[in-house]
């Protein structure tokens, strides 16, 4: 696909047509080409994870386990989780949009370590191959959480390749984060102070901190799981002295911050979109930027809220519950600021903005249900039920995937030089929103009614809501298929985008679409704050900036 893409874009020399041949892609160190490589690979994994989800929803239309055996179903939800979380959500925005945009947004020619950037893509692919091997060999049935001692002692499935795959993909994530941190610190264009950075860069920086600090711990935890599974020395096996709860502590030390790895980049995208389509600097710039960092730090203090019913000490549970409420404050700040940005703005309903509306609404619901889950007594009933499933899908899909799609639409002209069909895109955004709510809304009720998650067969009284959910999922699938088709279509037939089709501010819009290999002809110099849509500031004497 990529080489054809080069022929079609007949604009002057840009990163797509500068060189050609598969080698020029597989051995590229250009951050933009690596971003495209990532884009293609995560789309493959998204499709795979979506396929598993479809099969699960099909099974769940009837209360009896009639479509698949329970073993197959268990493998389906495990592989759905592993693929979606480790191979789609975590790399999604950072590795595609982040990779593509960060050097441009900071006015650099490339990331600080281009070779390491390529290495991280290869690690991702190797990790992915291990995960695929696990699927092809027969699947894994531990749940994406790999809880011990089930994963270490009792599961008869291919846990090792999956664990190795996630372990390797973790290093890909670490290297991406490392690259971003150094780039933001050391590669900024002259005049681009921290206070002038786009909010997307701020949130990516916060994300990178989590990747660098958290991922090594899950790596070591999974290494211990592997060790235990291979040699059975008892690290997590209570029968011979180990403590299975320790695994949960170590696992969630990473995996809770990991949800912020997934959502923070989405928040960054939304900050860009809301600003651009209101033609206004986001309200409370410094609070949005600061809240990203606050989320990154506080996010490390709350992992124990996944363990309220495990027999964790109730005093520890109390501490974790309290800290979980703390982390909600910066998230709330962001939502309020986005809304306030539109106040006295000039709002236009382009597709990316529609996704941003969707994000704000769905993330609000996801966040508020998160507060309910952080409440100790409430968590006891609804944890491990469909309420949790609905909660994190509202945040991860309603939040993160909406932001990803919004960002993809927003920067698609920059990435490819072509516009997507606007009418279709708006329609798809609407379908996705309706389908999404229909899929996951009923699951909140299922959770309150008491339907546990990861159930292959369930009590008959849960059927109506499950049917509703499955019906919604089919609409959601359509909502995802449409953009996939018109994005491909637009590569050839899309209207040519100018350098800045949205009239947006930001260094990435000051170069050509698609950008040349080294992004800018001359290193840009920044003289004003980000998002200076209001040029009266300058005319009136530039007292700001």
């Amino acid at each position: 696909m990529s080489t054809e893409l080069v022929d079609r874009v007949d604009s002057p020399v840009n990163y797509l047509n500068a060189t050609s041949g598969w080698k020029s892609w597989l051995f590229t160190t250009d951050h933009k080409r690596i971003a495209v490589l990532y884009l293609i690979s995560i789309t493959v994994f998204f499709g795979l994870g979506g396929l598993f989800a479809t099969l699960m929803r099909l099974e769940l239309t009837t209360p009896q386990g009639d479509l698949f055996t329970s073993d197959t179903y268990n493998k389906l939800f495990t592989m759905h989780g592993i693929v979606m979380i480790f191979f789609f959500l975590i790399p999604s925005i950072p590795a595609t949009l982040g990779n593509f945009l960060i050097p441009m947004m900071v006015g650099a020619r490339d990331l600080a370590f281009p070779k390491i950037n390529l290495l991280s893509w290869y690690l991702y692919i190797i990790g992915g191959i291990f995960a695929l091997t696990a699927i092809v060999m027969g699947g894994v049935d531990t749940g994406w959480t790999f809880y011990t001692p089930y994963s270490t002692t009792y599961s008869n499935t291919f846990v090792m390749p999956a664990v190795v795959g996630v372990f390797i993909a973790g290093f890909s994530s670490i290297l991406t984060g490392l690259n971003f941190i150094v780039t933001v610190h050391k590669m900024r264009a002259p005049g681009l102070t921290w206070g002038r950075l786009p909010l997307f860069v701020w949130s990516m920086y916060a994300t990178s901190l989590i990747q660098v600090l958290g991922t090594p711990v899950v790596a070591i935890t999974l290494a211990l799981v592997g060790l235990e599974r291979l040699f059975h020395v008892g690290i997590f096996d209570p029968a011979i002295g180990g403590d299975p709860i320790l695994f949960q502590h170590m696992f969630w030390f990473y995996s809770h911050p990991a949800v912020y790895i997934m959502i923070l980049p989405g928040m960054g995208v939304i900050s860009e979109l809301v600003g651009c389509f209101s033609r206004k600097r986001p309200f409370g710039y410094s609070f949005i930027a600061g809240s990203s960092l606050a989320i990154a730090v506080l996010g490390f203090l709350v992992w124990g809220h996944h363990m309220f019913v495990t027999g964790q000490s109730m005093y520890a549970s109390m501490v974790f519950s309290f800290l979980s409420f703390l982390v909600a404050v910066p998230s709330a700040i962001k939502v309020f600021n986005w809304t306030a940005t539109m106040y006295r703005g000039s709002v236009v309903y382009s597709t990316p903005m529609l996704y941003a509306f969707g994000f704000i609404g769905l993330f609000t619901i996801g966040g508020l249900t998160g507060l309910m889950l952080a409440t100790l007594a409430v968590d006891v009933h609804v944890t491990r039920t469909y309420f949790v499933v609905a909660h994190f899908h509202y945040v991860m899909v309603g939040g993160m995937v909406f932001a990803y799609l919004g960002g993809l639409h927003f920067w698609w002209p920059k990435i490819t030089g072509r516009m997507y069909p606007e009418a279709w895109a708006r329609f798809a955004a609407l379908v996705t929103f309706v389908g999404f709510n229909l899929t996951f809304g009923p699951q909140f009720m299922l959770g309150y009614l008491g339907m546990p998650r990861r159930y292959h067969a369930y009590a008959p009284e849960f059927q109506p809501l499950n049917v509703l959910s499955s019906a919604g999922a089919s609409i959601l699938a359509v909502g995802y298929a449409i953009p996939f088709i018109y994005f491909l279509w637009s590569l050839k037939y899309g209207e040519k985008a100018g350098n800045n089709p949205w009239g947006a501010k930001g260094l990435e819009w000051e170069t050509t679409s698609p950008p040349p290999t080294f992004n800018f002809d001359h290193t840009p110099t920044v003289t004003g704050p980000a998002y200076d849509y209001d040029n009266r500031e300058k005319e009136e004497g530039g007292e700001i900036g």
Partner: protein
Amino acid sequence: MPEFHLLPDAAAVSATGFDILWWYEVAVAIVMTTLIFAGVFFFAIKYRRRSETETPRTIEGSPLLEITWSVIPFVVMLTFFFWGAALYFHNQNPPADAMNIYVVAKQWMWKVQYPNGVREINELHVPVGRAVKLTMASEDVIHSFFVPAFRLKRDVVPGRYNEMWFTATKPGRYHLFCAEYCGTEHSGMIGWVTVMEKKDFENWLVSGGGEGSMASQGQKIFQQLGCSTCHLFDEQGRCPNLKGMYGSRVLLSDGRTVVADEAYIRESILDPNAKIVAGFQKDIMPTFQGQVSEEDILELTEYIKSLAETRGGMFTSEQTGPTTGGARGGSIANAGQGSLDTRGTSMTNQPPRAEANAQAQDASQPAAPKPAAPGGKR
């Protein structure tokens, strides 16, 4: 096919308490969501772009506003926190007179055993209006005991006891689910909790007994494993005298004291050297890891509990109640032979906290001189 309900059954005191908090939070969530949605829609429509050239003025932001919309939600969240924590504490802390039932989870069934020896699989029968404490152990992986109608859930973790208590309020049959993924037939690890009127429950319990009480089963195991050769009751053996041991404070050889509760007994059977009673030798008792199942351990525990009661005179006496009260001390009154309810039932769903505490304190006084006494060998 059961009818479709929008609201789950509420059949325990904990469920009522939960629902009030739950609907409060749902209401807050709806109000907040509405506010945000309304704001987004209102601004999006009111300030839609009317001409391509318009440029709105920059509004930099307002620290005052930021503080307002951080502090107010946080105060609301604090109500969530304190309310939720208070309820959670309450639900973690069984009253002293709770009736004890044992649950052993294994792939993929729930095995329930009553102190009088009645056993059930995937069924749990409990009386209305009586606090019931479940002591739960797992033989393999982590399971989770979940009764939606009680709004309670607790993981059953191998290698330790987890406890859960409730007071059922409404007779009926309610779902019991395993809520922690435990392997192939996870979704089949389900059952029913039957809440019965007190009379019905007593009749049911008496009619169900099979092989004798748990304590008598435990006594058999105690003999079979040869425990009785060292743990003597009349004179001093090589190992501590177990009479009166349960529920007392035990002085250890390293100077610490522990309460001899279920968890301590379990540990001492599986890892005898972990906590040696002061005055006794290490390495005399071998570990019984692998020789006894979780159920055996529970029966042995019941047996040791029954020893505590016979020493104190009649096991029905109220005063010998839990020595230190609360979750670990557990109820000993209903252990041993015979019916669970011989000592009369507590009519209140939950005994007032103060009373329970007073009871606990009373009981701990006589226990105080006991430490390390079992052997008397100092």
